[in-house]
């Protein structure tokens, strides 16, 4: 609580006290002199409490009416945030989920044509198979662009190269997964400590990687079927349809659980939009990465101090 608020509160208290006194003074001529002091004290307390209550209601009304800051904005201090996903990576993710949602909406009804909703989606929502297959192909182009874009990103961008390197599964990930299960069943007091990418995130990433290869590969065969033979078409169709279902279920169950429905992040983790994690989030979810960052910062500060002292020494 800062000094100004403290002063204001004290002032309010004084006003309430003086008001109580003047009310009592005004009432004195009418009070029976035989009334015991305890009764008078009790009434006095009641008057004071009532005045305190009324004044705080009036105050809060005033604040909400005239204040520029809403209570949510008026959070105590801004927490430090860390950039987790750059603009480039966020754009890739946005294009990808837009494409994938469209692909699922136009693709799934064809895997389950016997469901009433499938016919409703294709015929009523998309206006017939001609349109829905066109949208499916447009969205497929979106997905192919994401695939190529990401490939370029992990080759040509420094952050992309570093993240790709960190994404590669290591024995530690298997240990972490095992550790997590032990934690879940109560055999370990806490979960494993993750670095930049947990095994959960690595699974998500590689599932998408494999899915993209299967879906784009088989999808192109289906698209340009006249160039291939019927046997290959049948294989591509089966793979496309089955992997499509697997990917859809994995996204809805696993990815959505981790980034939406998990009680910790519900209704959703906003990192896809802001790209940022707060200090406490980073510390909680990626303690090893946090430690690394803090270490690096400390080292940089030390190095700068050393350099400064060195330069001042040499300068003198």
């Amino acid at each position, binding site marked *: 609580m800062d000094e100004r608020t403290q002063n204001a509160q004290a002032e309010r208290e004084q006003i309430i006290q003086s008001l109580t006194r003047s009310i009592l003074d005004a009432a004195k001529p009418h009070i029976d002199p035989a009334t015991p002091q305890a009764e008078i004290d009790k009434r006095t307390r009641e008057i004071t409490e009532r005045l305190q209550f009324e004044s705080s209601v009036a105050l809060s009304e005033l604040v909400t009416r005239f204040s520029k800051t809403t209570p949510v904005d008026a959070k105590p201090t801004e927490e430090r945030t860390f950039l987790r996903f750059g603009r480039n990576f966020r754009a890739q993710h946005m294009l990808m989920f837009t494409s994938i949602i469209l692909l699922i909406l136009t693709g799934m009804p064809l895997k389950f044509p016997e469901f009433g909703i499938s*016919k409703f989606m294709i015929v009523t929502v998309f206006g*017939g198979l*001609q349109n829905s297959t066109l949208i499916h192909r447009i969205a497929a182009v979106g997905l192919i662009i994401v695939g190529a874009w990401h490939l370029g990103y992990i080759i040509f961008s420094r952050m992309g190269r570093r993240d790709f390197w960190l994404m590669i599964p290591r024995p530690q990930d298997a240990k972490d997964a095992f550790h*997590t*299960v032990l934690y*879940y*069943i*109560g055999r370990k007091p806490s979960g494993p400590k993750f670095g930049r990418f947990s095994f959960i995130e690595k699974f998500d990433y590689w599932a998408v990687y494999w899915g993209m290869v299967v879906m784009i590969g088989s999808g192109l065969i289906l698209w340009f079927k006249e160039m291939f033979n019927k046997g290959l078409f*049948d294989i591509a169709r089966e793979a496309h349809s*089955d992997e499509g279902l697997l990917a859809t279920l994995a996204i809805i169950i696993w990815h959505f659980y981790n980034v939406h429905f998990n009680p910790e992040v519900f209704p959703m983790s906003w990192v896809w939009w802001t790209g940022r994690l707060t200090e406490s989030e980073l510390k909680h979810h990626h303690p090893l990465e946090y430690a690394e960052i803090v270490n690096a910062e400390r080292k940089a500060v030390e190095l700068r101090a050393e350099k400064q002292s060195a330069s001042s020494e040499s300068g003198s």
Partner: protein
Amino acid sequence: MRLQILLILLFLAIGSQVAAMERCLICHGKPDFSRVEETGRKISLFVDTTIIGHSAHSSRLCTDCHVDITTIPHAKRLEQVNCRRCHYSGNPVGAPQGELYDQYAQSVHGQEVMKGNPKAPICQDCHGAHDVQKHDSPDSRMAKKNRPKNCGSCHIEIYATYRESVHGVALLQDSVMDSPDCANCHGEHNIRRPSDTTSQVSASHVSQTCGECHGPMGVATKYGIKSDRTATFEDSFHGIAHQMESRTVANCASCHSFHDIRPQDDPKSSINVNNIVKTCGQTDCHPEATVQFASGKIHVDPHNKDSGLVYYITKFFTILTVATLAGLFVFIVLDLFRRAQKSRGGK
């Protein structure tokens, strides 16, 4: 006394019936009784009593149908005989009746008659006039084996095509009574144009119609023909597109053709190896079709081992999907379980 009078009256009645027939046959019983039309065509007016005697109407009088004859000699041009004079619901003579007449009225034949098309068939054209038989009589024009020829008397080219098709050969030459005649596909009284969406042979219904025999419950298995044809069609993109109300996509008839359906090894068959590229490559289908594209199995069932690699890919993905999702599911449940425990103040 009263009985005698009744008996006399009865005899008189029968006598007058016989007399009525005989009176018609005075002229119509002569084999060379004929009329020459203005065009010079000679039309026989001979009525063969043996034919009528064998017909379903053997006990009827000429005037029961030709009701506009009241005097002899009668008018030169008689009115068309109207079968519904007897065949209506609740008729007193016990003539068969039913919804078939209404179906006929809605059919393409009935509709054309209403429009005044002189070529459109009425009851007699299919069922016969003096030779009309009960529908279950093997001599009937509508008997299974006679039906193609009967329909063919108007649809002559189609009859010629059908007769050579696998269905026609089976029925007409090999007497396979399960083989479809015209009516199995087109219906009997409710025949409609293929362009009519309610027609059994419209694009929207043709796979159902073929499936009557070639589906899982069909008769085709009896003859060693696979019965998964409609199921595999429905699972194919063509079949799914059908369910999604696309009518430009291939149905059974698009590939197998309709009246000219032939077995695959027949060089004239639309699904013969040498013709299949042309069949797939129809302008509205896959004009850029190549031999490669059109080769290979068409009706593929991914759950059948005969489908080769497709079968194993299906199996692989089934296992992969079930295993992955089971794992993810267990993880989520355990996670939630742990969270619940923690929020309840557990360790």
